[in-house]
C-alpha cells in the first residue's frame, strides 16, 4: 500500500521509500522519512496533488511521488 492509496483523514506510518527521484529526496528533507506518521488531507481539484500532514506541517505531494512511499495504516 502506498501513500497515494490513503483516503482523506486516514493516518499511516511510512515503511519504505523509493529514493530514485529528486523530488522524493526533497520531500524527505521536509520530514517524509521512514517511521513517521502521516495523515492524508484533502486533494486538490482533480485529485492530484495531495495534501499530506506530517509533524505539524502540510506538504503538497503529487501522486507520482506519493506512490514511492510505502505505508502501513
Amino acid at each position, binding site marked *: 500500500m502506498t501513500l497515494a492509496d490513503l483516503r482523506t483523514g486516514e493516518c499511516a506510518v511510512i515503511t519504505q521509500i523509493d529514493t530514485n*527521484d529528486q523530488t522524493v*529526496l526533497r*520531500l524527505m528533507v521536509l520530514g517524509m522519512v*521512514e517511521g513517521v506518521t502521516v495523515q492524508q488531507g484533502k486533494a*486538490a481539484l482533480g485529485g*492530484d496533488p495531495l495534501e499530506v500532514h506530517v*509533524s*505539524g506541517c502540510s506538504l*503538497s505531494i503529487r501522486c*507520482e511521488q506519493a506512490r514511492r512511499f510505502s505505508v502501513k495504516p
Partner: protein
Amino acid sequence: MAGRQQTHIPISSITTLPKLAGTVALVGPPNSGKSTLFNQLTGLRQKTANYPGVTVEKKAGRLRADKVLLEAIDLPGIYSLSPDSIDEQITLDVLLGRRADTPRPDSLLAVLDVTRIQQGMYLLRQLLDLNIPLLVALTMTDAGQRRGLRIDCEALSERLGGVPIIPVVATTGENLEQLRIALGAIFDTVESKREHSWPALRDAAQAVLNKAENSKQIDLSEIERALVDQQSILATELQQQIGESAVRELILQRRKLFDSAPALAQEARYGHAWAGQQLQGLIDEHQGLSHIGHKIIAFIQQPVPAMLLFFVVMFLVFQAVFAWATPLMDGIDTAISSLGLWVQTLLPPGLINSLIVDGIIAGVGSVLIFLPQIMILFLFIIVLEDSGYLARSAFLMDRAMRALGMSGQSVIPLVASFACAVPAIMSTRVIATPRERLATILATPFITCSARLPIYALLIGAFVPATRYVGFSLQGMVLFGLYLLGIVGAGVTALIVNKLLSKGERSGFAMSLPDFRLPNFRTVTMQLLDRVRVFLRRAGRVIFAVTVIVWALAYFPRSEAIDTTGLSGVDIEELENQQAANQLENSFLGRAGKFVEPAFKPLGWDWKVSAAVIAGFPAREIMVAVLGTIYAVGDDADEHTLAQRLTETTWPDGRLVFNLPMVVGLLVFYALCLQCASTIAVMRRETNGWRWPIIAWVYMTGLGYFSALLIFQLFS
C-alpha cells in the same frame, strides 16, 4: 577649543551611541517569519541591493542589540543546507564564507516557526554544526498557543548545549526586547564544547581535510556538505581545491558512510531522527480552542471555495482600481495641471518654458497620475502573498497548470507578474523541471503588468463610458476583460511551448503549504512603500530622460516660416493651435512618425500614436508619457487633459483618430506585445542566452500587430 567643546556633551548621550559589535545573519525556512522579524529588528535602517552577478536580493540593516549595534543580513529562506535554487545556494555560500562580496557572518539568528518545529530542528542541526555563535528565535508562538502547542524552551536549550532560545511573535513584536538583550550577549557566551550532531560525518570530513593540499583555507563544514551533497556546486568546486589524494579520500569516506544509498536520503533520515530525539517529551500539544476563525480558514482552504474567492477578490480589485483611485487621481491631475499653468505664467514663453511645461510636467505627470491605481494593485498582490494564499493556490492549481505544461509553482510567478514580469521571471527558479520553467517564463510577459495599467486606464477612461451595469462599472469590466485576455495569452503560449518541446523528463512538485494567516499591517506597508519607491524612481529617471528627449525631438527644428503662414484665420486661439500643430508635424519626431506611419496606418494609428508606440518599446508606460508630451507640444491650450486631447484628435480630413475599432485594437496590441527591455534582459539571464528572448519578442510583437490589424480591418 574643540577639546573643550567635547566636554559639554552629556555623558548619557555618549553611552547611547553604541558601537558595531559584528555581523549577524538571519537564517530560517521560508514562511517562518524571518523577514518580518528582520523588519521589526532593523526598522527603516535597511538597504536592499543585489548580490553581485546574480539577481538575488540582499537585505542588510543595522539592528540595536541591547548596548551594541549589529550589522544584520536577511538570507534567502532554506529548509536545509542542500540548495535547490540560486537563492538557496547564496545562503549556503554566505554561511560557509564562500562569497567574496559577503564575509562569513560572525553569528547566526536561526528563525524557526514553532508550529513546524520538526522542520526547523532539521535545519538547526545543520546550522549548529557550522560552529558559529548562534541564537534561536522561536516565532509564531501566538499561533502555537492557539493550537494548544507548547515547547519547553529551557529544557530544549539545555539539550542543545546551552543555545539561547527566545520565543517571540514577529508580527506584533512581542518579546522583542528580550531577543535584543540576548543578541547583545551573543559573543559573550563562552563557546561551550557543543558536541557535533553527527560524529561519523565530522570524522570522515577530518580524514579528508588531513589529506587536503591547502587545508588552512578550507573549513571542515565545507567538506561535510561536499560529502553529503554529492552533485552540488560546492562539491564540484571543492574537489578542484583539495587536490587528488583528498578527492580519493572523499570518495572513499562517502562510500564508507552511506554505502550505495543516496547520501541526501541518509542525511534526511539521520537529521529527522536527531530532531525527534531532541524534541522528545518537550512538546505539549493538546487540542487547541477551535474558534470561528479556524472554521472560516478551513472552509476557504477547500478547493472550490478557494477558487471562487480568488475570482471574486480579483474582480473587486479591478472595480476598486477605478472606483477608489479616481478621487486620488483627479487630485494629482489637478495638482499637475495647476503646477504646469503656474510655471507657464512664471517663465517667459519660449524654449525653457516649453521644456518644463510641455516636456517634463506633461510627460512625467501623465505617468505619475497612475500611482494610486498601481498601489491598489500592489496591495492586492502583497496581501495574497503575505496571507499564504499564493502558496495554497499553487497546490490547488497544480493539475490545471500541468495540463498547460506548467507546474503548480508557476502560479506564484504568474500572479506576481500582475505587478511586474521581471521579479516574476526570477521567481520561476523554484520550478524544478526545466520544461515547465521555460513555459512559465514565456507565459509570464502576457500577464497584465502594472506598466500596462496606465495605458489601459488612459484609453478606457477616455473612451469607455462611465456607466454602470447592475452596480458594476463598465470601465472596470472592460479592464477585467483585458486582464483575462492576458491570462488566456499566457495559457495558450505555455501550451504551445509544451507541444513544441520534447517531453520525457520527469516532473516533480514538492512544497510546504503555509496556513492562512491575517496579513501583517507593518510588513504589508513596508513592502508597498518599497514598490512605490521603485515606481517613483523609474518615473524620476527613465521616464524623465525619455520625456526630455521626446520633447526635444518634438520641439526642434523650429521653423520661423510656419509662424507667419496661414494668417487668413480669424480666431487667434485657433490660429495658434494651427501653428503649434504645423510646428510639431515639421519636427524631427513628426518626420520620423510620418516615416513609420504607413506601417501602422492599416491599424488606424496616425503618426503620433505610431511614434508613441515605438518610443514605448524599451518600457511600455513611456507611451503614455510620450503621448502626454506630443499632445502638450502640439496644443497651446494647456488646461486640457490628455484624455480630452485624445478624444478630439482627427485625421486631416476630419475623421476621429481614436474611433472604437482603433482603440480596441490598440488595447489588444498592448495586452499582447512585449514592450519591456527589462523583461528581455531578465529572460536572457534566466534562460542563459538570446534565443528565447528573441523568440518571445518576435512572437508577441507579431501577435499584437496582427490582432490589432484584424480588429481594425474587420470592424471599421
